[in-house]
């Protein structure tokens, strides 16, 4: 296990990249996912259709292919994303937002129809109904599945290691090359650093859930 201690700076560098990817992609995915969910229940057919196609396309495509498209196919159409961090953020948030959308939509479906009818009855517009009445209730209901989506996102950042991003997984591979005798401790170290993100995320889900719980 000395190999983990000796190479702590290398681990930390990879870990900080993984953490930044998770946080930045997570925030973007949350915002974009909420927008997609709103579009999916909107009364305007083209917006609804756009959101449906987007979600079905991204949710059913392997993340590696999303990366592949962004790095190798998009440039052929003149779309050149800067290699590394931002390419990874675009791919990860585009992919994760589809799952955020579906989680939020299930929350929207759980809000009683009477709530929307009452909101309309007192003269709120569709936007007001959604943002002031439906979404606040919907998001509270879906805290556990949303945290699941973000735990999956934290682990999915490892796909970026194959696409010009030196995060935890790529850092682990480098250490493995330098210490071929200790490849197993090196990988255990990598796993521990992922747990540093994912276990607190799981615990915070429980805390947040208790805080925002409401009687229905």
């Amino acid at each position: 296990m000395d190999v983990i201690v000796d190479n702590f700076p290398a681990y930390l560098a990879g870990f900080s990249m993984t953490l930044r990817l998770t946080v930045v992609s997570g925030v973007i995915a949350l915002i974009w996912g909420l927008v997609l969910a709103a579009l999916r229940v909107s009364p305007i057919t083209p917006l609804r259709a756009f959101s449906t196609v987007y979600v079905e396309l991204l949710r059913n495509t392997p993340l590696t292919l999303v990366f592949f498209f962004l790095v190798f196919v998009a440039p052929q159409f003149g779309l050149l994303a800067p290699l590394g961090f931002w390419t990874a953020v675009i791919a990860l948030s585009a992919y994760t937002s589809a799952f955020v959308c579906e989680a939020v939509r299930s929350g929207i479906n759980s809000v009683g129809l009477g709530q929307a009818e009452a909101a309309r009855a007192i003269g709120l517009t569709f936007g007001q109904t959604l943002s002031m009445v439906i979404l606040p209730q919907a998001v509270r209901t879906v805290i556990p599945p949303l945290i699941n989506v973000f735990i999956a996102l934290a682990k999915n950042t490892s796909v970026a290691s194959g696409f010009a991003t030196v995060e935890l997984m790529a850092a682990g591979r480098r250490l493995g090359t330098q210490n071929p005798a200790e490849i197993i401790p090196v990988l255990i170290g990598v796993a521990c650093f992922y747990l540093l993100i994912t276990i607190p995320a799981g615990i915070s889900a429980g805390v947040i859930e208790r805080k925002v719980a409401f009687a229905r």
Partner: protein
Amino acid sequence: MRIRPTGLVALLAVSALTLTACSSADDDAAEPDVADSSEVAEFPEGSTMATLAEAGEITVGTKFDQPLFGLVGPDGVPQGFDVEIAKIIAGALGIDEDGITWTETVSANRETFITSGQVDIVAATYTINDARKEIVAFAGPYYLAGQSILTLADNTDIEGPDDLAGKKVCTVSGSTPEANLLANYPDAEVVPFGTYSECLEPLRNGQVDAVSTDNVILAGFAADNDDLEVRGEPFTEEPYGIGVAKDDVAFRDWINDTLEASFEDGSWTAAWESTAGSVLPTPEPPAVDRY
């Protein structure tokens, strides 16, 4: 669990058939080539050579995505110089091509596959170095490669590794060339991808300035693409060896003998010319390092 009588009979029948098949295969191997059979008898009892020769089977780890050295085509059979070298070794054991099981070994799993016994030998552009010698043993080298640089043909800014400072250099995540760039050319910006072929599109787009790995791999790319060129002389030495279990000294010595014999009798040169020799000049065989 109960075994039904019919099932048992079937099982026995299959075992009998297998046994017959084995013995007939042995006969085949012995009859047409007398030299082979006498060689098989020479192996010391209990040695790896004797075990493999008796089984008539060997499991070889090689790369499946390395043009010129080990590349699997649509037919599923790997081709290249590493593959030919493995065939020479298997042939000296009296094992023909049907008896070789090809297993994909990527750079990261080669040591593990050898120590766990999942492969008998590894021939996979496998650089002999001291860190690896602590876990596995190497016969050879059978070829001396060296790290080099590939750029677009019209890019004359880069002529050697010292020109890489401030440039984006594509290589494979977790590879020896990546480790070398990080250690010796810290001013170069390393852009790691999953495989070397994935570096070519970013190179053409201008997202990276160069690709760096062993010259033999780059020569393969340059030969297939007119817009790419290999720059300068190799700046490292990568002796490719055959990886075997660490404590199997007899097997390593025997492979060294076999390699030296192939240097002498021209089969090494023939193996080179039928594979990597299509784009690279034929080198002198290297001196085997019996460490």
